[in-house]
């Protein structure tokens, strides 16, 4: 028999106030406050102590310099930089719909000591595209690209190996990557603070609002709130779902599991159930969702342990049936295993047969204590 869902006392969600995307006015802090923040970080204090301990004193002249340099003075070392991606220049950088000269990036160079020659270690696509646009007569009053000046950030060295390392560093190694959450944040804040009318920004803000309406909050993976506060989630692929499905998932979480952070399985589970039921023309009723919640709560104490149990069963199934030690994970197993369990525990809701035809043998590999729950039925 499917366990009945038992209500859990709802507490105020702390993310209502802590939500990093709730601001609708721009907030500015000075660099001094950031420095204070870093100075108060214990690991940073240890690092500075280690600098002093080792007697390290850095030469201020080694810091990069910046200069307006004529494009004609730039050189590209083919053994350092990647080959020119002409399609990238044409379809991405210079595309009419998106090209904006204000967004052109600085060119990173290595300058040979005593010579006015600048070896571009990053920014060849920007420099080449700009030069070719000038050459094509697109810029007003400019005809000779060689004379056009661009901002260049450079370091002076005759070491090519240093240049090579600099290139790797600038292209990601050592740089904090923009996370999917940060990309989402940029869109949402562009809409909320700057009133952007960009379609992507509007769509992202709309999805954010759907989540917030149900006390669900996207946060960055390295956020201190991750896995800690109810309603938080780090799985940004949730935003690739349709608005309807996203709303159904957030509503389900908020109604039944508002006391937990959102487990990634929620998105796959409800997306697949919605798609499967829709294609089989079966209505998803509130009663059915309540039964699923009861099953998840009663048998697994929530989605996180259910998710872990499906992973275990899937791994064993792949190993025993296909003799593959590291059987590749399939997200679609989440919804299907839940439906199999629902059916075996006596659930009366009609289920899409095309879903039940998948992963049936996995049920032989679920944990014994779980199997016992439906084998008794």
């Amino acid at each position, binding site marked *: 028999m499917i366990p009945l869902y038992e209500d*859990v*006392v709802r507490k105020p969600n702390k993310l209502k106030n802590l939500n990093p995307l709730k601001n609708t006015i721009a907030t500015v802090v000075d660099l001094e406050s950031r420095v204070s923040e870093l100075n108060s970080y214990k690991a940073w204090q240890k690092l500075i102590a280690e600098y002093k301990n080792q007697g390290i004193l850095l030469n201020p002249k080694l810091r990069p310099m910046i200069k307006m340099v004529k494009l004609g003075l730039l050189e590209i070392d083919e053994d350092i930089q990647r080959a020119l991606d002409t399609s990238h220049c044409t379809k991405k950088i210079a595309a009419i719909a998106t090209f904006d000269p204000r967004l052109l990036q600085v060119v990173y160079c290595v300058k040979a000591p005593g010579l006015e020659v600048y070896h571009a270690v990053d920014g060849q696509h920007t420099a080449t595209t700009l030069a070719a646009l000038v050459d094509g007569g697109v810029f007003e009053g400019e005809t000779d690209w060689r004379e056009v000046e661009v901002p260049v950030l450079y370091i002076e060295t005759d070491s090519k190996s240093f240049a090579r390392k600099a290139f790797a560093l600038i292209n990601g190694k050592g740089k904090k990557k923009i996370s999917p959450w940060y990309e989402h944040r940029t869109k949402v804040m562009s809409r909320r603070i700057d009133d952007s009318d960009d379609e992507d920004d509007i769509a992202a803000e709309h999805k954010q609002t759907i989540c917030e309406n149900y006390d669900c909050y996207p946060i960055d993976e390295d956020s201190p709130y991750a896995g800690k506060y109810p309603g938080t989630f780090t799985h940004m692929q949730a935003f690739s779902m349709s608005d309807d499905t996203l709303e159904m998932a957030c509503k389900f979480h908020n109604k039944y599991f508002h006391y937990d952070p959102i487990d990634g399985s929620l998105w796959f589970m409800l997306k697949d159930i919605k798609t499967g039921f829709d294609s089989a023309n079966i209505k998803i009723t509130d009663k059915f969702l309540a039964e699923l919640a009861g099953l998840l709560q009663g*048998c*697994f*104490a*929530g989605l*996180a*342990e259910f998710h872990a149990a499906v992973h275990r069963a899937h791994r064993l199934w792949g190993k025993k049936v296909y003799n593959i030690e590291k059987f590749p994970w399939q997200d679609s197993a989440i919804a299907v295993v839940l439906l199999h369990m629902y059916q075996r525990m006596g659930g009366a809701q009609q289920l899409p047969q095309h879903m039940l035809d998948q992963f049936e043998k996995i049920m032989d590999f679920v944990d014994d*204590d779980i199997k016992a729950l439906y084998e008794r039925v």
Partner: protein
Amino acid sequence: MNFYILPGPFRVGFGITGNHERRAKDYTGAWGGEAEFKYLFEGPPSHVKRLENVIKTMHSDMLWKLDEWETEWLGNGWTSEQLLEFVKDIIKERHLKLTQIR
């Protein structure tokens, strides 16, 4: 499966095990002195694991940290009885199927 609360020589600890007698011996062997689980709960593995994970993730502030490593020992000031009450509250509010057997 069991969830246990263990008064250690320096602080209060907790954990889960499929065999509490053997686990107690593991502690005894490591400490060189008898370890006894003061409080013990029993329940289905999913519920026992959830209880442990709720403490370790949602209440990680209460854990004793060794550098950046979050241990299964509580920070200073916690008594076994306080942890017992805390655990009972979690079990009650989340309807976890755990029963206290010691």
